[in-house]
C-alpha cells in the first residue's frame, strides 16, 4: 500500500497526527499512566512484570496507531472475512479444548499464544455494523434476527470455552450495534423482559457450578469467606478500608500482604480503591466517563453509518468493561473474568482495547488514509 496524499515524510506525519483525536489520545495516556502507577503497587513492585507491561504498552500503541489509519470502507470489506476466520478459530479452540482439560481459551501457534475470542470483540461489532449499515435503518425484524444470529454464534462458542466475561463483552458489542442501528424501544423492552425471564433458567441449566457459586456468593459474600466468597470479601475490605483519602501508594495492606487475590489482574481496582481512596476513585471514574463520552462523540462524528455504529458500540463496550469489573470488585455484580480496561495487567486485552480506540479515533476522517 502506498501513501496517496503527502509528498514528503514530514507532511505525512503531520497529516497522520491531525487525523488522530488528540483529546482522546491524551485522556488515554493519562489513564494508562494512572494504571501503570497502580500496577507497580499491585504487582508487588515486580520489575519483571513492569517490563512486560511496558512491552505490552508499546505493542498496543503500535496497533492503535495502525488502527487509526484504517478507513471505514476497508473495515467494512474486511469485516466479513475477519468474522469468518474468527468463527473458524473459535471452533478449532473448542476442538483442541475438548481433548485437553477444563477451560481452553488459548490458541498456540508455535511460540505465539493468543486468545482468539479477543478478536471477536472487534470482529463481531464490525460484522454486525457492516451488515446493518447496508440496510435502511431502523432495521426490520428479519434484519434484527440475522444480526442477532451473527452475535449469538460466536457468543455461544465463547461461552462453551467457557469464558463468560469475554462472551458478555462480545455479546454487548454486537448488541450495542443493533441498539444504535435503531432497535425499537419496544423490542428493547421485550429483550430486557426476556433476559429477566431467562436469567433463572440460565442460572439452573446454562451455568457451570463455579459460575453458579459466583452468583450465590454475590448475594452473600460473607457466607463463605474462605471459599468462593473470599475474592469479594477481601476486595470489599480493601476498598472500604481505603476510606476517603486512601492508605497511600504502595501502602495497601490488603494487597501488599497478599490478602487480595488476583490483585494485579481482575481485582486491581480494589488496590486502587485501597491506596487512593474515594478521592482517587472520583478522579478515575471522571476520567473513564470522559473517555466514554468522548468515544460516543467521536462515533457521532463518523462519516458514515458504519463508522457511527462501530464507534458507538466500541465506546459502550468499553463502558461495559468498566461497569462489570468495578461492579464485581465492589461486590454488586457477580464475579466475571473481566479486566479493568487499560489498567489490569495483561497484553491481549490491552492490545484489543487500544486497537478499538485506534479505530474509534480514525473514524472521523473521510476517505483519507489507506484504502
Amino acid at each position, binding site marked *: 500500500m502506498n501513501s496517496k496524499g503527502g509528498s514528503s515524510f514530514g507532511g505525512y506525519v503531520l497529516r497522520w497526527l491531525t487525523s488522530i483525536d488528540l483529546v482522546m489520545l491524551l485522556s488515554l495516556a493519562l489513564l494508562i499512566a494512572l494504571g501503570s502507577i497502580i500496577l507497580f503497587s499491585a504487582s508487588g513492585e515486580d520489575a519483571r512484570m513492569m517490563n512486560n507491561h511496558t512491552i505490552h504498552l508499546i505493542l498496543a500503541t503500535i496497533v492503535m496507531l495502525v488502527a487509526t489509519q484504517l478507513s471505514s470502507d476497508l473495515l467494512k470489506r474486511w469485516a466479513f472475512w475477519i468474522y469468518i476466520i474468527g468463527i473458524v478459530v473459535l471452533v478449532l479452540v473448542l476442538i483442541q479444548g475438548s481433548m485437553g482439560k477444563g477451560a481452553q481459551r488459548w490458541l498456540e501457534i508455535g511460540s505465539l499464544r493468543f486468545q482468539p475470542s479477543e478478536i471477536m470483540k472487534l470482529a463481531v461489532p464490525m460484522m454486525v455494523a457492516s451488515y446493518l449499515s447496508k440496510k*435502511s*435503518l*431502523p432495521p426490520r425484524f428479519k434484519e434484527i434476527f440475522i444480526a442477532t444470529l451473527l452475535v449469538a454464534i460466536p457468543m455461544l462458542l465463547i461461552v462453551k470455552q467457557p469464558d463468560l466475561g469475554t462472551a458478555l463483552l462480545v455479546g454487548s458489542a454486537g448488541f450495542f450495534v443493533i*441498539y*444504535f442501528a*435503531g432497535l425499537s424501544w419496544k423490542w428493547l423492552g421485550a429483550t430486557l423482559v426476556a433476559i429477566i425471564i431467562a436469567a433463572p433458567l440460565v442460572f439452573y441449566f446454562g451455568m457451570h457450578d463455579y459460575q453458579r457459586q459466583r452468583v450465590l456468593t454475590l448475594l452473600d459474600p460473607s457466607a463463605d469467606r474462605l471459599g468462593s466468597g473470599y475474592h469479594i470479601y*477481601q476486595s*470489599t*475490605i*480493601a*476498598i*472500604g*478500608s*481505603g*476510606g*476517603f483519602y486512601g492508605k497511600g501508594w504502595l501502602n495497601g*495492606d*490488603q494487597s501488599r*500482604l*497478599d*490478602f487480595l487475590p488476583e490483585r494485579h489482574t481482575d481485582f486491581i481496582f480494589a488496590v486502587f*480503591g485501597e491506596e487512593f*481512596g*474515594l478521592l482517587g*476513585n*472520583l478522579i478515575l*471514574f471522571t476520567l*473513564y*466517563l470522559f473517555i*466514554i*463520552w468522548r468515544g*460516543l*462523540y467521536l*462515533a*457521532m462524528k463518523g462519516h458514515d*453509518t458504519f463508522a*457511527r*455504529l462501530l464507534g*458507538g458500540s466500541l*465506546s*459502550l463496550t468499553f*463502558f461495559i468493561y*468498566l*461497569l462489570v469489573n*468495578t*461492579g464485581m470488585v*465492589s*461486590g*454488586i455484580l457477580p464475579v466475571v473474568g473481566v479486566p479493568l480496561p487499560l489498567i489490569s495487567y495483561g497484553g491481549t486485552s490491552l492490545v484489543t482495547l487500544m486497537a478499538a480506540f485506534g479505530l474509534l479515533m480514525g473514524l472521523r476522517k473521510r476517505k483519507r488514509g489507506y484504502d
Partner: protein
Amino acid sequence: MEKRVTVKSEREEYRLFRSRAIVAAVLVFVALTLVFARLIFLQVKNYDHYTTLSKENYQKRIPTPPVRGLIYDRNGVLLADNHIEYVLEAAEDDVKDMDRKLKRLMQLLPITPQEIKKFKQKLRVNSRFQPVVLRKNLTEKETAIFSANRFRFQGFNVSVRMRRNYPLGSTAGHLIGYVGRIDKKDLETLDKKNYKGTTHIGKLGIEKQYEDRLHGKAGWELTEVDAHGKPQLKLDEKAPITGEDLFLSIDLELQLKAEELLAEHNGAAVAIDPRNGEILAMASMPAFDPNLFVNGISYANYNALRDDIDRPLYNRALQGAYPPGSTIKPMAALVGLSADVVTPTSSVYGKGYYQIPGNRHRFRCWKKAGHGNISLNRAIYQSCDVYFYDLAFRMGIKRYSDAMKRFGFGSRLGIDLPHEGAGIMPSAEWKRKKYDKFWYPGDTVNTGIGQGYFTATPLQLAFATATMANHGRKFKPHVLRATRVSRNLPPKIVTPEQLPSLGVTKLRYWDDVIRAMVNVVHGTHGTARRSGAGAKYQFAGKTGTAQVFGIAQNKEYDAAKLKKKLHDHALFVAFAPVKNPRIALAVIAENAGGGSKVAAPIARQLLDTYLLTPQQKEEISEQNNAKNTDESPSLMNINKLKKKKELERKLKREIQINSPLTTAPRT
C-alpha cells in the same frame, strides 16, 4: 427505490444515532453513579467497619507468657524455680525434604519413633509456619551435638523454654504442690486473655492457691502477617510482667527434720508460730516428687502413687482426720474450767474405769489400776481418762462441743492452702444429721478423751496448741509470709489475720493448764518425761494415743496380735518456750503405738531444731554420736560430714533476706 431510501436514510440515520448516543451517554452516567454510590457506601459510610476487618486480617496479637514467680522458704531457700529447657523444633514450611532430615536426625540423636510420629501428627494440625516440638528436654550434650550439625538440618532449631522445677524434690511436696498442663477444667475458670500463651497452671498446694500472684501478667506482640499467616514485622509489643515471688513461712531446716523423723512411719507434723499463725513446717509422709507432674506424669508413675497403700498423694497434715486422743485433754480441761464444771482443785476418783450413773458399761482408763483421787493438774500430766470422761459427761455434749469448736476443732481454719480438711467436732445435732441417730451419753464420754466421733487434722491440733500457748489469742494459720513484686524491691510481709480470741478471761485457768502440760514433759511423773529430759528450754506438751481399732469390753489391747494397720496412732502436741512461745506443734505417727514412746521424741527433736542455736545442736549431735557404738568412729565421721554437707546444700539460701523478714517477733 433503493436509491430513494438511501438518500432519505443518511440524515435520518444520523439523527437516529444521535438520539441513541445521547440516551446511552445518560445511561452510562447513571450506571457509573450507581457504582460510585456503592464506593461511597464502602469507603465513607462503612469505613470503620472495613478498617477493623482489614486490621483483623493482617494484625496478629501473639501473647508472650510471663515468667512464673519463684517460691522461697522464710530464709530465702529456693523451693520452686524455672529451669531452662531445650527443645528441638521445626516449622513445616522451613524444612525441605523433611523425611530425609528426620531420618538423619534419628541417627544423630536418640529420637524415638514415637517422637517422630507425634511430631508428624502435630505438623499436620498446626499452621505451616508454626514451629512444632520434635524432642523435649534435650540434654546439654544433645544440644551441643545438634548445634555442631545444625547446617545439615536447615529449618530445625533448638529453642529455649521455661520449665517449672522443684529443686528439693519431694521435700514439702504436698505444701508447694505443682503445676501441670492446663486442662479443660482449668479453662472453665481461668482468665483466657491472660493465659493465652501459658501452658501450665498451679494444680495443688501453694502453686494452686497463689496461682494469680505466681502467674504474672501476659504481654503481647502485635505482628503484621501476610495472607498465609507468615509474620512480616513487629508492629508493637507489651512486655509480660513476671509473677510475684513468694516467701513461705516454712523453715526448711525444720521441714527437712520433720520429714526425716517421720520417714519410718506414715504420719504428719505441723508447726505454727503462735505469735502470728505462720506455718513453720507442714510435713506429710510418705511424700511424692512434684517434678513428676510438671510435664504430665506417666501412667505407670501415677498408678504407683495412687495405688500405694500408704497414699503418698494425700496430704495428711491438712486433710487427715485423726482421733486426737488425749492431746485434746488440755483444751478440754480449760473448757471445763471456764464452764465451772471443774475447778483447779476439784478432784475425781479414778478407779481404772468410768461408769455413767445408772449404766453398767465400763469406759476404761489406759491405766487399769486407776489413778486414785485425781485433780486437774495430775489428770493432764498423767493423762487420766476417767477425769475427762466425767468432765465431758457433766458438761454435756452441747456445751463441750461448742466450747471445743472455739479452739478450731470441727471446721476449716481457712489456711491458705487448697483441700483443707475440717475434722469432726461431734454434737447431738451433727449425729442426727449425719447418721439419723440419737446421741447417747456414752458418745459424750468418748468425745471427752478425743475418741469416738471426734476427729481433728494435725493442722487443727497444732492450731489448738498454739491457741493454748497464746492464752486464747488466735491467728489464722497461713503459709504465705511475704511477697515480692520485683527482684529490686524488698519483700512485703503479709499481715497476719487475728481471729476473735477465745474469751476465757481468767488468766489463772490458762496458767493452770499450761503448768500441767509442762509437767507432762518436765514433771517426775509426766507421761513424756523422757522426752523432756535435758531440754535447754522449758516446754509444754501432751501425749496422745488414738485407738484405731475398737477393743471389746472384756478384751485387752495387744499390739503384737494386731496388724500394723490397726495399731494405735502416736500423737504429741507441744509448744515452747513456755514463757513467750515461739513454736507450737502437733506430731502424728500412724500406727506407731504410744504417743510418749514415738511422737514425743520426734516433737522434742523438732523443738530442738527450731529453738537451739547451731552450737547447741552441734553439742547434741556429738553426744548422740558418743552413745552410738555400732559404727567405727571414722566411718561415723564421714557419714556425719556427708549428712552435714547434704543439709547445707539443701539449705543454701538463694537470696539474703532483708531485715523486715528476719525480725520475727510480733506481739
